[in-house]
């Protein structure tokens, strides 16, 4: 083989390999770009008022998003109450009880539900909760988010239950425990860390969802008492404020974006931490 060909092949090797590195660094730097930009723009507009005050009417500067923060928390609570139990028990079924065919159907449906675009989930919650009573409500938003929590929780529960070594189950059963007792007192505690992580990630994911809330929880410039009124939420506020033509609203949108991103990233980092700690113990 001629020397020129070898030089060509070697340089192609170096060029292409460095390009892959550049691509990876480029993608990762987008994360830091987002973080930096949000910190820069949102940090300066973030103040105590943001967390404690209601939005001001158009034209007046200042005000905050206290109602949206509380609204988001209420929506998340509903989503957790509805989605987490269904996800947890269904996951236990798949990992511990399920036969072949029915489990396959459930698993397949869960994946299907996971892939449904969030806006379509919004339509579903709208026709389920909003249409019958003819008005937007916190409850409808909670239902939409709750449905989105289910698939991730199921997957995490099943996966981490399956990772629990069979010898633990056999040990408990050999001591005379019934199957449900084995699951409740031995298997579930062993998989606790992983399952909690999955739940946390599921909630973090829906915390930033906007599309399913647009026509279920809608929005609100004021406090939303109870569960049957439309409510403001951070993601919807960001959307409304970002597309509005007022500079002051843009600043608030940045601040809200920063708060939301901080919440989501902290949840993700926390989940990672939980998982790393959980993994080192209990390997039999």
């Amino acid at each position, binding site marked *: 083989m001629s020397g020129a060909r070898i030089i060509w092949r*070697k340089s*192609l090797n170096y060029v*292409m*390999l460095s390009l*892959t*590195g550049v*691509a*990876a660094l480029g*993608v*990762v730097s987008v*994360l830091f770009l*987002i973080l930096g930009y*949000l910190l820069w*723009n949102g940090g300066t507009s973030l103040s105590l008022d943001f967390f404690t005050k209601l939005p001001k009417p158009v034209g007046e500067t200042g005000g905050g998003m206290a109602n949206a923060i509380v609204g988001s928390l209420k929506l998340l609570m509903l989503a957790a109450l509805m989605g987490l139990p269904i996800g*947890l*028990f*269904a996951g236990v*079924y798949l990992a511990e*009880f399920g*036969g*072949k065919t*029915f489990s396959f159907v459930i698993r397949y*449906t869960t994946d*299907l*539900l996971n*892939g*449904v*675009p*969030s*806006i*379509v*989930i*919004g*339509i*579903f919650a709208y026709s*389920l909760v909003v249409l019958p009573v003819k008005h937007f409500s916190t409850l409808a938003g909670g239902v939409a988010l709750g*449905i989105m929590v289910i698939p991730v929780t199921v997957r995490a529960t099943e996966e981490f239950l399956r990772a629990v070594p069979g010898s633990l189950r056999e040990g408990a*059963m050999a001591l*005379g425990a*019934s*199957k449900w*007792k084995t699951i409740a007192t031995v298997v579930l505690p062993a998989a606790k860390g992983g399952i909690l992580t999955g739940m946390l990630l599921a909630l973090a994911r829906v915390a*930033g*969802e*906007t*599309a399913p809330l*647009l*026509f279920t929880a*809608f929005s609100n410039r004021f406090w939303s008492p109870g569960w049957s009124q439309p409510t403001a939420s951070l*993601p919807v506020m*960001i959307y409304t404020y*970002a*597309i509005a033509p007022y500079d002051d609203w843009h600043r608030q*949108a940045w601040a809200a*974006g920063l708060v*939301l*991103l901080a919440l*989501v990233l902290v949840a*993700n980092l926390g989940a*990672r931490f939980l998982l790393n700690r959980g993994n080192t113990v209990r390997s039999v």
Partner: protein
Amino acid sequence: MSTSATTFDRAAPPSWGPRALLRRLRHGDEVAHLITLIFAAAILLITSMLVYELWVNSHLSRAKFGGKFFWTSVWDPIFDNFGAAPFIYGTIITSIVALVIALPLGLASAIFLSELAPRKISDTISFLIDLLAAVPSVIYGLLGIFIVVPLMRTTIGPALINTLGHAPILGSLFRGPNYGVGFFTAGIVLAIMVVPFIISVSREVLLTVPREQREAALALGATRWESTWKVVVPWARTGIMGSVFLALARALGETMAVTMVIGNDPKISASLFAPGYTIAAVIANEFTEATGDLYLSALIELGLVLFLMTFILNGVARLLIVATERGGGHAS
């Protein structure tokens, strides 16, 4: 006791029928089994209700427009005339633009992470990329409005018009007035959003390629790049295709970020710089304002179309990924 010991065997099918159930209820196990089964069945119920509601509530529109809905492009709420063509077009075009940008970037990054980077660095970068996937879409929209749109208007757009705009066939895509908002801008934002999915799935698939394959190629005198590009990547081809379909399904259904940067104009234009509209965006914008049953029904039919598109793509993606993982196992 003996019952619980046999039911523990996962291969044993649960026995059905009321008599069998009653007999087995005497042990607490069967109650637990039944409760978890009910919750699992709830998922089935929710999903079937979702499909049912979409189908029933889009009845008016389906009955009135039939197949015409898909290829007419008039969207006129005042005269109750609805055609979905501009939205379907916009949804597909933005997703294709997103993939054209995201695939090379994602594949290259995945190659770097699986083939080159030391395990520790690779894991750290993968984690950061997973964080990127967790950023809410409305925040991508926010950055899209305030960074990508101005950048597109002043820098990227003119640069593309001056270079690719002169190309013989593809040139027509890159001509015309450049407003900053439009298909291409939406494509860029979508690309950033789907790249993490391509990377994480492709990396997983590349890591399943047996070591011997790489070593054999290197032993024959191939360079590192040649072994990666001619042996490892083809081996994982099906799985990488799967990641692409997964990303495509994401891009099609993405709502907020696209709504904020695409310009929201129901037109079919050859130019990528023209403002457009997507299915998800029109639902997001017009659903609350939809007065009249036919209007609402048409929007819900759009939702049904979107659901079917993502359903098919997700199905194909899953098949492809499973096929690679199995295929790799057989051959080694």
